[in-house]
């Protein structure tokens, strides 16, 4: 299995399997063999996002969230040489055109969203910044809890909840809501969430 144990790459594959909208993405295991694919991806893009993944070691991988396309190939080459597979994403601005970003936790009976308005989702993950929290009942998508200021017009997050309501329980999805649409870019299992009151 080419992607076996590349957890971030498998995660993106999983998002594709659920037919969720995602940023345009390619994987580069060896730039020398995949240069044409990379050139095609970079064409017409000024900025791209570079993430990376290593078999069985998803943490502390090189990450360049905002990279000029002109510099992308040399960085990909360098990262590949260090033994990492590169995940090359379409760049989603962290402020311009951004409405919200955050996590969606799928529980057995509810869908929980924790949101921020701008910046990387690591603000939420690692710094604990949470600007809005919404809890939907899964069966009819009724909003049962709400905290914080409203980051989007009424009904916007409910539509997003509808996209993910059939995804198996106890998974956390990372997403970005831009003015032009919603993009999911990571999905992870969170078995510990079974302990939460649902």
């Amino acid at each position: 299995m080419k992607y076996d144990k590349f957890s971030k790459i498998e995660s993106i594959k999983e998002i594709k399997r659920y037919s969720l909208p995602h940023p345009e993405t390619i994987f580069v295991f060896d730039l020398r063999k995949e240069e044409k694919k990379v050139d095609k991806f970079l064409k017409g893009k000024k900025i791209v996002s570079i993430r990376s993944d290593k078999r069985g070691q998803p943490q502390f991988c090189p990450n360049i969230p905002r990279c000029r396309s002109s510099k992308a190939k040399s960085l990909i080459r360098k990262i590949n040489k260090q033994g990492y597979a590169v995940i090359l994403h379409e760049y989603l601005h962290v402020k311009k055109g951004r409405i919200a970003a955050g996590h969606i936790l799928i529980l057995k009976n509810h869908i929980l969203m924790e949101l921020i308005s701008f910046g990387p989702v690591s603000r939420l993950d690692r710094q604990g910044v949470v600007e809005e929290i919404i809890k939907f009942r899964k069966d009819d998508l009724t909003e049962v809890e709400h905290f914080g200021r409203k980051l989007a017009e009424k009904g916007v997050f409910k539509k997003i909840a509808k996209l993910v309501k059939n995804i198996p329980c106890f998974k956390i999805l990372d997403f970005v809501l831009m003015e032009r649409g919603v993009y999911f870019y990571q999905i992870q299992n969170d078995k510990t969430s079974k302990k939460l009151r649902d």
Partner: protein
Amino acid sequence: MGNNKKEKQKIALNGIVASPGIVQGKVRIVKSPKDILKAKREEIIITPFLDPDFIILLKKNDQIKGIVTNEGGATCHAAILAREFQIPYLAGVEKATKVFKNNMRITLDGEKGTVYEI
């Protein structure tokens, strides 16, 4: 005959249940990551938020009874780890570090989402 003594108002705050469980203990206000290592048995740490520097140290001290933070939610990295370690954790308790003081006895109710002085 009414009691003329004014009863002191007990502190009670609400938050988001990030890791369930009900515990009682003494408050330890934690301002720097190293303070986590000083937390003793029966202590509930109260801190602005558990960033990755705090989390590494949290793993080294298994005596912590509970966690309360001003910031955070149920999907943050700190919340996932607290659930993994089975430490009750209440996140998003605004002003917790201001109103609670060291050695105060509190109950962290990680079922109802409240923390209060006892």
